[in-house]
């Protein structure tokens, strides 16, 4: 991988991490309300896979959706403003943390009902097939989503119609507080086989591996091999959402995963390959800090929606 790409991934991953850390602070200060699900620990997946997609490809995910929004290039200011419920937010303050979207970038959004977006992914893929394009859909979900009905209907439909969908399972080991082995009757990869896909399992903490696997899968889809399935093993360092007391796992377990921190893995790779030195990485950290602070300032200074906005947009006006 060339130096610019590695540094760009580093920049994006640090940007997501710091965005999430700042969001947590704003939440604790009462400036963000509702529910907030942090992507800390999983950054390599959004960054590596979105880097591998073509311009016409689509992205759709669940409620842990800040990382994907940032990786597709959504306006950082507008994403932060959405979290604060401001009129300048990506969804005009009406969606909030779990319902970001940037349709202009083919980012169809985050969805707060587990697995609820999987049927949509099949429909977007069906439309691309209907129009005979080469575009594919990257559909992200957590391990928990593989146990809900949507998963099975959607993977079956994609298999029957050979739709251009890449199913990406971000297996962070827990569906809320319930570990995968308590929730899934079979290994997740076996479920792909049930719907005619081989599927593969990779290290979701390694951005290079995520990128290469995603690229291979998208190529297979464009070569007419039908839907593809990748289980990316990862870990969230924080709770399911803010306020999760984390009684279901040990501190030792969290510490062990921190050794594989995705930013740390990439940082070591960059230094080993001499793509940049520590000083250059610190300079990137500094730039990120400025961007985050600018986004927070923008969001805090943005106006709240007017009361009339409550009624706008429920229907398309003729």
């Amino acid at each position: 991988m060339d130096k610019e790409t590695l540094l760009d991934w580093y920049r994006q991953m640090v940007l997501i991490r710091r965005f999430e850390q700042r969001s947590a602070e704003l939440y604790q200060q009462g400036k963000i309300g509702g529910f907030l699900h942090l992507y800390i620990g999983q950054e390599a997946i959004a960054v590596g896979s979105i880097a591998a997609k073509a311009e016409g490809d689509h992205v759709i995910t669940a409620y842990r959706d800040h990382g994907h929004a940032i990786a597709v290039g959504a306006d950082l200011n507008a994403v932060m403003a959405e979290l604060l419920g401001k009129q300048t937010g990506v969804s005009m303050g009406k969606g909030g943390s779990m319902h970001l979207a940037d349709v202009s970038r083919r980012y169809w959004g985050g969805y707060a009902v587990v697995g609820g977006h999987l049927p949509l992914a099949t429909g977007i893929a069906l439309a691309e097939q209907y129009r005979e394009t080469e575009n594919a859909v990257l559909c992200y979900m957590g391990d928990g989503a593989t146990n809900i009905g949507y998963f099975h209907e959607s993977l079956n439909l994609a298999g029957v119609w050979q739709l251009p969908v890449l199913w990406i399972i971000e297996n962070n080991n827990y569906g809320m507080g319930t570990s995968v082995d308590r929730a899934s009757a079979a290994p997740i990869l076996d479920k792909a086989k049930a719907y005619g896909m081989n599927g593969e399992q990779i290290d979701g903490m390694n951005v290079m591996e995520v990128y290469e696997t995603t690229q291979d899968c998208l190529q297979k889809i464009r070569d007419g091999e039908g839907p593809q399935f990748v289980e990316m093993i990862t870990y969230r360092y924080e709770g399911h959402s803010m306020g999760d007391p984390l009684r279901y796992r040990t501190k030792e377990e969290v510490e062990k995963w921190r050794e594989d921190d995705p930013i740390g893995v990439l940082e070591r790779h960059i230094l080993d390959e001499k793509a940049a030195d520590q000083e250059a990485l610190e300079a990137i950290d500094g730039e990120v800090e400025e961007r985050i602070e600018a986004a927070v300032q923008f969001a805090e200074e943005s106006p709240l929606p007017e009361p009339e906005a409550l009624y706008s947009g429920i229907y398309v006006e003729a």
Partner: protein
Amino acid sequence: MRERSYRAAIREALLEAMSADERVFLLGEDIEYAGVYGVTKGLVDKFGCDRVIDTPIAETAIVGGAMGAALMGLLPVVEIQFADFIAAAMDQLVNMVAKYHYRTRTPLPLVIRAPAGAILSTHGSTGPFHSQNPEAWFAHTPGLKVALPATPYDAKGLLLAAIADMNPVLFLEQKALYNEKGDVPEGIYTVPLGQARLAREGNDLSIITYGAMLSPALRAADLLDGEVDVEVLDLRTIVPLDKEAVLTTARKTGKILIVHEATRTAGFGAELAALIAESAFEFLDGPIMRLSSPDAPVPAAPELAGYYLPDVNEIVTAVRRLSAY
């Protein structure tokens, strides 16, 4: 005028829309063959199975999939085999479809057709899972539109309007009407969503109804000719609701009988009664009355099913009671 059945009118609407615009396509279970009620019969011969798409039995994937295609600018028309089965896709409809435009301002031109209502015969009915009238579920969800055509003319015109609409529309076909015939013009025409039709003018009392109950309401009004001068308003769509037409007839006659096939409690009739009470109270000369199915599932047994639906005799009796005020 040319006469066509309600079923044929719907098929014509699909055929006209698909001929006029390549973005229109159909999704549903066994629709290539004809669908359970034969509405889509023959369309695959004209448009091929790329546009008349058979699906697995998977209502959630059908509705959610159609939503995805609609977001991409296609114009999917979904058939759900029975309106009862929409329950299997309720999350997609209520949480995904209904709220997407509110979140992102992306148009969602999706039509969901489904046969609703009970068919009763001396042999029994279609039973508790193939006979329901779920329109109130959808009316209670901001973001959806709900059409219930009562005539072949409206079936074609409302469906063409629904396909042209940039919002999600539930199009509840009335099973009892599929074989009913009426005037249906050739070519494309639309009946606007949200415009009620005065099906019969009268001065003494108003029946407000929609869907399959229009026909017994009109027969009851005819039977009462010379005794009570009954006005009959057919809503055609309950979302959007033509509030002006509802209030105009309420102010005119001052006596309101609401008739629908759906069950009573929290049925759409309750919403109409509340609207009239709030906005035309001073014009009323009697209680707002409702006729509906009872608060019970649709029974299969013929001896029970016979009591289930409101019929002409009950409407006549209710009109006489109300007109006595």
